[in-house]
């Protein structure tokens, strides 16, 4: 092409590089107390023991949080039982709906405050907590508020009744969103709950107690006890809990299932995953690359349904990998509160070590590692976005859930081979298919053994859509009408 010459001196010289100035969201919108107790029966129960919760991006201590004991759990279950028996379960559905609608609206009103706290305590980028976690959490409350007075229609001729007291244990990757996934259907169905947030990310759940106060939810309907695994174990073992809902690792899920066996407690588990993201050669290439990036680097890959195994049809392997690597170089890793950050901090030192050791195993087993040049902050827990190529099905990085920003790339030749390889895992939570051919999407979706199959998109969530796993990814569904079933008994 012809060069356009500009005579020198006519106009000020252009500067070279465009570096985005820091654009941090203000921390002032949220007030964190120095010390928190447990939220039981609508009151703050002083915690006998506490531990420090930190910000994973700076290792800065944020607050002292209660380490829930068996007595704390017992008090919370007692409060939930009494609230269940004394009014909540007998309340007309339309009345329960009012509270849920209120909670949803307050979440919207206070979304900035909650989003900042979520990013501060969990390390996820503010753009994700602002644009995904908070809107979806509110949407879940809105959605289940709508079901509260329509249960008889949702399950016609089956006489739906609440189960009783639900013990709910949630993970650290989407603290407030998982809280919403658990509490909203439970309350809509007429249950009361005791919720234990993850020990690394208790703060939004504790701030949520203030949302409940604002909504004037009757005391004891929602109780929150914080702490490490032992607190969760006490909740699982408690005799007066009617149902356990757990989202977390497969290992803990298996323990819970064996513990609950024979107790008469109901159980739903949403566990690990090793999702296959399958890219055919007729896909919309640039958009598939976006989908791959969103699939594995969204929330630092700390997503149970993350697209951690990428299957690429061999005929487009090279251009796709080239595009993927270039795209990786544009990811902005850093301060979770900066509005331009794409990839934030790893949730905890423990998780960072787990990721690092699995990545090392990939290198040792012979996979080829690629990490874009990026400067990671010195303090806090960080891991650069990583892609492994030349991965074999047998490598640990292709088998085990890494729960970090690490993608393993494998190839296939035919649709049959893609299905076979994709299903060749103990997990079955989600899968993605990228093709412009509609018939192939349907063909694949029928054969993939995964609870969710996304077509030409990934990591898309909606309260109306049931979510859950096959095989070691758990059982039971959350979201949609299906999500109510775990919280209802049917007298037939």
């Amino acid at each position, binding site marked *: *092409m*012809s*060069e*356009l*010459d*500009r*005579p020198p001196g*006519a*106009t*000020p010289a*252009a*500067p*070279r*590089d*465009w*570096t*985005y*100035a*820091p*654009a941090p969201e203000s921390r002032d919108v949220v007030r964190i107390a120095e010390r928190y107790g447990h939220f039981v029966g609508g009151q703050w129960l002083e915690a006998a023991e506490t531990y420090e919760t930190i910000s994973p991006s700076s290792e800065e201590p944020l607050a002292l949080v209660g380490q829930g004991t068996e007595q704390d759990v017992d008090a919370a279950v007692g409060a939930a039982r009494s609230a269940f028996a004394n009014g909540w379960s007998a309340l007309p559905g339309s009345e329960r709906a009012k509270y849920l609608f209120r909670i949803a609206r307050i979440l919207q009103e206070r979304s900035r405050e909650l989003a900042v706290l979520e990013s501060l305590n969990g390390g996820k980028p503010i*753009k994700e907590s602002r*644009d995904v976690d908070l809107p979806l959490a509110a949407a879940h409350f809105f959605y289940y508020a709508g079901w509260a007075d329509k249960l008889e229609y949702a399950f016609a001729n089956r006489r739906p009744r609440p189960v009783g007291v639900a013990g709910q244990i949630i993970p650290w990757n989407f603290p407030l969103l998982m809280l919403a996934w658990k509490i909203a259907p439970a309350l809509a169905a007429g249950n009361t709950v005791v919720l234990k947030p993850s020990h690394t990310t208790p703060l939004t759940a504790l701030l949520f107690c203030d949302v409940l106060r604002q909504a004037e939810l009757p005391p004891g309907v929602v109780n929150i006890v914080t702490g490490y695994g032992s607190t969760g174990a006490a909740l699982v073992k408690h005799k007066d809990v009617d149902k356990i809902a757990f989202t977390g690792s497969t290992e803990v899920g298996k323990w819970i299932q064996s513990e609950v066996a024979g107790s008469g407690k109901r159980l739903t588990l949403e566990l690990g995953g090793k999702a296959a993201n399958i890219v055919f050669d*007729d*896909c*919309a*290439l*640039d*958009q*598939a690359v*976006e*989908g791959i990036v969103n699939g594995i680097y969204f929330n630092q890959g700390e997503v149970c349904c993350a697209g951690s195994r990428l299957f690429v049809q061999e005929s487009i392997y090279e251009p796709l990998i*080239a595009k993927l690597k270039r795209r990786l170089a*544009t990811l902005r890793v850093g301060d979770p509160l900066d*509005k*331009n950050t794409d990839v934030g901090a790893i949730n905890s030192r423990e998780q960072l070590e787990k990721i690092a050791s699995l990545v090392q195993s990939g290198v040792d087993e012979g996979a080829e590692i690629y990490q874009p040049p990026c400067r990671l902050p010195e303090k806090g827990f960080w891991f650069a976005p990583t892609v492994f190529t030349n991965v074999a099905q047998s490598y640990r990085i292709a088998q085990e859930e890494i729960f970090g920003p690490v993608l393993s790339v494998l190839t296939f030749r035919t649709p049959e081979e893609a299905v076979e390889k994709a299903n060749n895992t103990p997990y079955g939570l989600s899968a993605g298919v990228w093709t*412009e051919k509609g018939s192939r999407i349907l063909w694949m979706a029928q054969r993939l053994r995964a609870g969710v199959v996304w077509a*030409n*998109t990934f990591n898309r969530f909606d309260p109306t859509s049931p979510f859950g796993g096959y095989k070691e990814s758990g059982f039971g569904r959350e979201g949609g009408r299906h999500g109510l079933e775990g919280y209802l008994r049917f007298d037939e």
Partner: protein
Amino acid sequence: MAQAPALPTGFELPLEPRLPRIGAVDAVALEERAASLAKRSIKKDAKVFALELAIRTTDLTTLEGADTPGKVAALSSKAIRPDPSDPGIPSCAAICVYPNLVPAARERLRGTGVKVAAVATAFPSGQYPTAIKVADVRSAVELGADEIDMVIDRGAFLSGRYAKVYDEIVQVKEACGDVHLKVILETGELGTYDNVRRATLLAIAGGADFVKTSTGKINPAATLPVALCMLEAVRDVHEETGRRIGFKVAGGIRQAKQAVQHLVLVHETLGPDWLTPDLYRLGASSLLNDILMQLRKGKTGVYQSPDYFTLD
């Protein structure tokens, strides 16, 4: 003139230079990506950089039946010194006018480095015989235009006569000689992103130096997803052939904020190499004053009345 179907049915391209596969565009994902880039928060120095770059790359445009030499001369002066009270403000890249106004612009801009671009080929509809369009280009070149903004024949494109569209671009390119050719796709009339991508590749195959979104006469014009779609095609061409094709976004960009969003799109799709008037242009008219107002606000901390910025 079109030859050798190197790509799938109906899309005829010469074998050389090699072009990427046409491929497909997923509308939902494209729009999502554009929307996420639009949320980049550009503050302080980064914002000043973007606003000044926007001025540097602006094709200050007037395309009215009522344009006169006087109006064009005034606009040309504005392009040279957008803000007379602030010598730190750079000049615009070019003035974009109808062919008849080229001499007026030329006279005022002589020796300044600001180019004169003329729209041609029966702008904006393109619904004239090829010979007339080519003659239109020749006369604009003779009148002294440095750059030609042509429109593609959307009637031919939408009826599947890609070869006609391609041949016309080739002929216009010949008529341009060394003059810089921008090819306007008028994406608002193309209907789908697949068509936008196909037309972008077709224009590049035909010899475009720049591909341009719109005439500014049709709504929707330069939306962010359309720009992203074209930028991705430009990127593919660069990766496959090494050719650097310029990109001009035009139509409906009136606010500084929109301009910054478009620049972010280029920056994160094609990289910093494209952030120059040689490879990027913003077609606009009222945008310039909004940018000046934002820059002045950055320096003084307060918004000035519009009366402090010249209307030309």
